[in-house]
């Protein structure tokens, strides 16, 4: 049986032109020529190999999958390269002892983002509302942060926030051009904080992180520099632009929002933030 199997497997090797010396190949060929049974084995192996090679056609990889992979790998590449730079900038800007006047901070940030094309940053440990929001957005884009609750309307999101322990009134407006896709509640030093995400038909994302304004002074993990805090309390919208996303900080009623998006920033400003601020949705 062992010998019989050996010649059968040698026939497979013969068909595949593998694992046989020239002498062994000649021996196998002789065996095939002399035995109808082995001839059949040879024909089966050869015809199945040819059939599969010729007839199993490859599906094309979907374009969106290639785009996703290219975008994620190139983004990782840039992020690693610029990590140390953006770490330094953010540490400088968001550490109170280095605080400058708000005007110069904004100018400096705008220049830094636009000149160096800094992408959304992952893995930064400095805790504050802005950095957390940017990190979370980068994680969403990378597929590392998934919604705890998949939902498509404001009522569901707000109910989820309530049931998950968010102790302040949340604002979750609905829009025609952006659909709510999911929500997350995080725990920052025992305080449950609300996050939700919108998407448009083309897949652009809007990530919204909202806290009660009291959190900015009571929770170290979300507090901002005094200059930014003052601007938000004066109802100014503070905007940071990067080459592939924008981040907005603003206040409405009792809540302060960090919004990060890869959608058109002017559109977000005019159609999303203004509508949110003008709405009475609580």
């Amino acid at each position, binding site marked *: 049986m062992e010998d019989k*199997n050996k010649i*059968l*497997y040698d*026939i*497979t*090797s013969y068909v*595949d032109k*593998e*694992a046989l010396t020239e002498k062994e190949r000649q021996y196998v060929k002789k065996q095939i020529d002399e035995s*109808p*049974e082995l*001839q*059949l084995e040879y*024909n*089966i*192996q050869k*015809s*199945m*190999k*040819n*059939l*599969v*090679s010729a*007839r*199993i*056609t*490859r*599906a*094309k*990889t*979907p374009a969106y*999958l*290639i785009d*996703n*992979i*290219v975008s*994620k*790998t*190139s983004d*990782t*590449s*840039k992020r*690693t*390269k610029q990590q140390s730079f953006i770490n330094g900038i953010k540490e400088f800007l968001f550490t109170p002892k280095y605080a400058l006047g708000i005007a110069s901070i904004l100018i400096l940030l705008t220049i830094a983002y636009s000149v160096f094309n800094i992408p959304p940053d992952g893995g930064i440990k400095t805790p504050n509302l802005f950095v957390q929001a940017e990190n979370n957005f980068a994680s969403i884009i990378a*597929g590392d942060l998934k919604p705890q609750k998949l939902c498509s309307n404001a009522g569901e999101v707000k109910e989820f926030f309530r049931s998950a322990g968010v102790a302040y009134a949340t604002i979750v407006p609905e829009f025609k051009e952006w659909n709510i896709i999911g929500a997350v509640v995080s725990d920052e030093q025992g305080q449950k904080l609300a996050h939700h995400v919108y998407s448009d038909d083309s897949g652009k994302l809007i990530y919204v992180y909202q806290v009660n304004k009291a959190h900015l002074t009571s929770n170290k993990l979300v507090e901002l520099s005094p200059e930014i805090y003052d601007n938000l309390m004066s109802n100014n919208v503070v905007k940071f632009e990067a080459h592939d996303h924008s981040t907005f900080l603003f206040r409405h009623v009792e809540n302060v929002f960090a919004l990060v998006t890869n959608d058109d920033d002017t559109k977000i400003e005019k159609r999303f933030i203004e509508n949110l601020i003008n709405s009475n949705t609580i």
Partner: protein
Amino acid sequence: MDNLYKEFEKEALPHIDALYNFALKMTGSSDDADDLVQETYLKAFRFFDKFERGTNCKAWMFRILKNSFINDYRKNTKEPDKVDYDDVSNFYENIKSSDIKTDHLQEDVYAKLMDDDIAASLNNLPEDFRTVIILSDVEGFTYEEIADFIDCPIGTVRSRLHRARKMLYTKLFSYAKDKGFINEK
């Protein structure tokens, strides 16, 4: 890092169709194949500095895909088909030359089968057998590369390949007979 990324694009991206098709065959679902291929590329990029230049990048990518499949995908799904090798062996050894006319092996018999029929028959093979056929006859891997992929000696690769083709043949043979492409009296 830029150079590394460019090299990664040049080396790894050309194999995406092969990986995607293999992932489709392994998972049987386009959504799962999407996830598996994406995970494979992200892992491959993360460890691309460990890739030994000049070696077979396609085989390296396939190994990463296999590990992702086993570690991340399979543990969340049902156990794969278990194969009783003795049963398989007995099954195909019962096909005797006297049962089969050589002209049934002519390609025109199988030419009548649709590509989908052939693909379905291949997909119906137990996973271990399907894998070696795809790697050998669709992807063109050598026995050594397949052995590396399935963590088995080369001898196992060729015996499994032999059995796999025999099983595929029996499936296609009965399929062709059912469709009336083969008349047996």
